[in-house]
């Protein structure tokens, strides 16, 4: 719905005392809620971990309320019942995603309650909110609490209790927004998965923004600029790698703190912006993490300032200038990745070491994501790599069985056509890579590459970290173990014996070529001794040796 123009800046207006809301008034409120949700769309997206962590709740809710607004944009309807029905109809037709569908149900219940009325007063508003809640709850057999449903319930309750105090709809809306805020903050207590992720519910937060937008409109506050961009705590990290730094960014200061009073973001941001740049704030369960880049002379200022707001639990200061210089001197030669053109097929390969990355790059990989045994890349890293490519036909090679799932999740989160060729090891990935034809037919290339997975036997050699009996092989801690296609096939007291034992088990005599990738935990001398032994044992085989630089595994071996 990119062709939808957002309305120009709205002028807010307070509802006069005893004033009743008509159809046009409701239309203005919907427009305000929509505009404020759009402003905060990314914040809502970032919170999305339930039921599927696909980061689209804000977008889905916005598309839903936009569809509702488009339905009424040109309507001059004065009757609030008719207007509410038009809104509900638009939301129903445009409902997207879980939260969008629930939002459309809320509108539907709201509309039904106002059926025959021309205008709305406080009492009718309260009834309509209750009906909205009831309708939303009817749409699911087993409502999950700690979601937008809970927030809708708490809103209806707050409205009901407000009526005893006032019938001024401005005040009632203010109380509703406060209740929604409270309810959203409470969601991690009801839904453990939110607590684990250190976030509040995204759909609930989206509903909060819609209501807050309405309130801001009534108060005449701006709707187009976000107060802050608050992200989940985990998104703000310490010691980020940065490409370049600007003057005045000498130190990176990251502070975790617990404010004694609710944080006023506007003031907080404006105070911080006087000290430095690159300000980020993360929130989770009453904890906040702030991140800022400051010049040398101001490196302690953020700490002093934050101490005045509450209790500091952790501080980290890094000298960015020194870090940059360090990077400059030790950085290995850059990877020569293959540039892709729109329409071509690109490959994203997951690689456990820089040496292996270089080989993937030389074979035509368009992007490399670091990751492997015990260091799975996140879905976001893979998604990021996919999204950054200029083409929409992407093949991902996970190169480890534990990464296949993350790759699939990433594939489901993009509109690009992404296929996972499920390589379980580096040799499988490289074998598939050899079949890449960037200009070929996508399905055909995928088929070819998938078939190539079976062309190669994978060997891996590493040191056992504990004593165990696996697969009928008795392994003592510190011994060298060899894996053939992921299964332990032998153990030995030294690398040479383990390698030779592995090659035997892998029926190397039936194959022609052995390619060894050595890890970052073995010396060149050791490597040469072992390769000499292998040459002696398999004199008729072609033997290749590459620097793999992978951690954990002394050797990754491809036998084909």
């Amino acid at each position, binding site marked *: 719905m990119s062709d939808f123009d957002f309305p120009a800046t709205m002028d807010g207006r307070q509802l006069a005392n005893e004033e009743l809301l008509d159809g046009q008034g409701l239309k203005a409120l919907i427009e305000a809620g929509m505009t404020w949700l759009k402003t905060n769309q990314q914040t809502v997206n970032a919170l999305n971990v339930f*039921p*599927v962590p*696909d980061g689209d709740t804000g977008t889905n809710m916005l598309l839903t309320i936009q569809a509702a607004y488009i339905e009424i944009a040109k309507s001059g309807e004065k009757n609030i019942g008719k207007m509410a*029905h038009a809104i*509900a109809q638009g939301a*129903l*037709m*445009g*409902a*997207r*995603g*879980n939260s*969008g*569908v*629930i939002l*459309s*149900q809320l509108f*539907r*219940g709201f*509309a*039904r309650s106002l059926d025959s009325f021309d205008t709305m007063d406080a009492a009718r508003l309260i009834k309509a909110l209750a009906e909205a809640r009831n*309708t939303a709850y*009817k*749409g*699911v*057999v*087993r409502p*999950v609490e700690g979601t937008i449903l809970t927030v809708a319930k708490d809103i209806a309750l707050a409205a009901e209790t407000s009526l005893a105090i006032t019938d001024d709809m401005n005040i009632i809306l203010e109380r509703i927004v406060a209740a929604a805020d409270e309810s959203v903050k409470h969601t991690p207590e009801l839904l453990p998965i939110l607590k684990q992720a250190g976030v509040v519910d995204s759909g609930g937060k989206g509903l909060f923004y819609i209501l807050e937008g309405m309130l801001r409109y009534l108060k005449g506050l701006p709707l187009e600029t976000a107060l802050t961009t608050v992200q989940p705590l985990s998104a703000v990290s310490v010691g980020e790698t940065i490409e370049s730094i600007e003057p005045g960014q000498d130190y990176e200061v990251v502070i975790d703190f617990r404010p004694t009073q609710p944080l006023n973001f506007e003031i907080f941001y404006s105070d911080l912006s006087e000290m430095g740049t690159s300000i980020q704030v993360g929130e989770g369960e009453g904890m906040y993490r702030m991140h800022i880049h400051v010049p040398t002379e101001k490196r302690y200022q953020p700490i002093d300032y934050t101490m005045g707001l509450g209790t500091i639990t952790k501080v980290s200061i890094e000298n960015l200038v020194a870090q940059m210089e360090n990077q400059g001197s030790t950085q290995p030669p850059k990877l020569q990745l293959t540039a892709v053109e729109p329409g071509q097929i690109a490959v994203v390969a997951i690689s456990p070491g820089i040496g292996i990355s270089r080989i993937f790059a030389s074979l035509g990989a368009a992007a490399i994501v670091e990751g492997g045994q015990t260091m799975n890349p996140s879905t976001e890293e893979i998604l990021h790599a996919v999204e950054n490519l200029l083409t929409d036909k992407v093949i991902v090679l996970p190169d480890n069985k534990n990464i*296949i*799932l993350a790759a*699939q*999740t990433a594939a*489901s989160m993009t509109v690009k056509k992404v296929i996972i060729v*499920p390589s379980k090891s580096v040799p499988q990935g490289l074998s598939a890579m050899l079949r890449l034809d960037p200009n070929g037919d996508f399905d055909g290339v995928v088929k070819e590459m998938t078939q190539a997975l079976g062309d190669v036997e994978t060997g891996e050699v590493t040191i056992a970290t504990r004593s165990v009996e*696996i*697969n009928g092989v008795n392994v003592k801690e510190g011994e060298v173990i060899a894996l053939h296609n*992921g*299964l*332990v096939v032998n153990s030995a007291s030294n690398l040479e014996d383990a390698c030779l034992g592995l090659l035997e088990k892998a029926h190397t005599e039936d194959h022609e070529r052995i390619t060894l990738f050595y890890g970052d935990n073995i010396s060149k001398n050791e490597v040469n001794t072992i390769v000499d032994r292998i040459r002696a044992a398999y004199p008729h085989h072609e033997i290749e040796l590459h620097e793999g630089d992978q951690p954990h595994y002394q050797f990754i071996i491809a036998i084909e």
Partner: protein
Amino acid sequence: MNERTNQLGNIYVSPRAIATIASQSTIESYGVVGLAAKNLAEGLAQVLVKDPTLGIEVRFEGDSLQIDLYIIVEYGVRIKSVANSVQDNVRYAIEKAIGLTVNRVDVHVRGLRISNTD
């Protein structure tokens, strides 16, 4: 591929176990008000599901895992969005819990429940 092997041995996951997970996440999906027996003869939607495989069909065809869901949807919601959400939820729940790749989730809307008339 409901059988996987690691260093300690084989792991078998039965279609019934997969169906149970699918059933739970279907029933928690917004807009779904019941599962329907696949066979229309037994076809009353049962909201209280005792058999975890009611309305769920799990099939392995070679290496490919396919799931069919027979659901009842609340009248007045956008059925396409509900069905999309159910597909996403079920696939994610199974992949997260078992680590198997779900190749297909087909959603069959077997009926609508009307609890309110507008």
